[in-house]
């Protein structure tokens, strides 16, 4: 008997680290991404404050240059615009890093769309870094005007990525809640309860069917939204799914309220 208890304890001790180590990499990876997001967001805020300050300074310098039109005021304006352009690139680089990390951390996003968004984020980070180098080396009026022209090519790409990534994150969150709700709906199916009186059981089945109908509509709407997002990426047009997103959100809230009602009535 003692031997049996001892061997069971030994087995438990041997296997417990295996279970812990098998589950921990995913959790620790997720936690490290969350920590990184917080860190990047902090430095992003600092860079944004610095950018605002430099921009205010540039507006004054530009006003002086337009008013005085002297070489000295031009030199100040060139130096100031260069500083602001560089800080703006830095802010946008941090913003791209936030997008990348948020996408990596998010669940529920279609893998194909996620990969495309991440690739575009990486490409833009590389292009903005190259642009920042050009800005830092632009020392005269012609050069700063040239880097401002170059930025016009990057500008639509980053605004497009921003709205695309936002849409992915929004719908990804709704999709995750839908998936988890689906598990709950299955777990609360009254057909699995055998000790229920038939009158009460029929009532519960009707209530449960109502939730299932809502879930079917939600599934259809979510698929439609994913298709819309995909189309908007291909056509480079912003997706018009705000109304549908709001409807999905309301339906999910309704499903959870119904589930709560059913569970409280158990």
């Amino acid at each position, binding site marked *: 008997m003692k031997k049996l208890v001892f061997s069971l304890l030994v087995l438990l001790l041997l296997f417990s680290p295996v279970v812990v180590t098998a589950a921990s990499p995913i959790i620790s990876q997720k936690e490290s991404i969350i920590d990184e997001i917080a860190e990047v967001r902090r430095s992003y805020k600092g860079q944004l404050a610095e950018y605002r300050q430099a921009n205010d300074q540039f507006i004054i310098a530009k006003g002086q240059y337009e008013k005085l039109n002297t070489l000295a005021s031009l030199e100040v304006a060139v130096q100031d615009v260069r500083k602001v352009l560089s800080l703006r690139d830095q802010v*946008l680089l941090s913003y791209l890093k936030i997008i990348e990390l948020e996408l990596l951390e998010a669940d529920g996003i279609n893998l194909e769309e996620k990969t495309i968004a991440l690739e575009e984020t990486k490409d833009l980070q590389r292009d903005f870094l190259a642009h920042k180098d050009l800005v830092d080396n632009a020392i005269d009026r012609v050069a700063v005007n040239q880097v401002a022209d170059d930025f016009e090519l990057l500008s639509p790409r980053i605004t497009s990525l921003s709205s695309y990534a936002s849409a992915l*994150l929004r719908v990804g969150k709704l999709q995750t809640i839908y998936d988890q709700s689906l598990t*709950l709906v299955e777990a*609360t199916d009254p057909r699995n309860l055998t000790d229920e009186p038939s009158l009460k059981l029929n009532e519960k089945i009707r209530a449960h069917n109502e939730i299932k109908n809502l879930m079917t509509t939600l599934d259809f709407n979510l698929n439609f939204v994913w298709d819309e997002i995909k189309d908007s990426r291909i056509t480079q047009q912003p997706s018009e799914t705000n109304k549908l997103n709001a409807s999905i959100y309301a339906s999910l809230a309704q499903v959870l309220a119904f589930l*709560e009602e059913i569970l409280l009535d158990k």
Partner: protein
Amino acid sequence: MIDNNDSNQTQFASQEPIMEGLASYADPVIPQETQPKKKNSKLILIGIIGFVLLIVFVLLLILIKAMSSTKKVVVDDNGNIIETINGEIDPLLNEVYILAEDLEEGDPSLNTIPFPPVDMELRLDPPRRK
């Protein structure tokens, strides 16, 4: 007929029967049938104790199950009624509340990555017309 013709003159005559008597009562021979009886009684005792412990254990289980079936109703911070089993929230109901909180965070009208408030048309001179 036994011959009593001991030639040892140093031994007292009365000593002989006593020595013989002691030798016969010093190590009483235990009958072999009595030993298994003791072993059996030990086993019976262990069996009885084990049986009593088993009954106590079963009774405890029944008691715990009976106690767990008594549901308590508590009200949460938001005024919602939460049905609990022995003071613990129903895991499924708890799951629903966690999802409801997640849903609040996932409000599609909120943007977690708003575009930075920077001037995207920033430049020193106006763009040349092409």
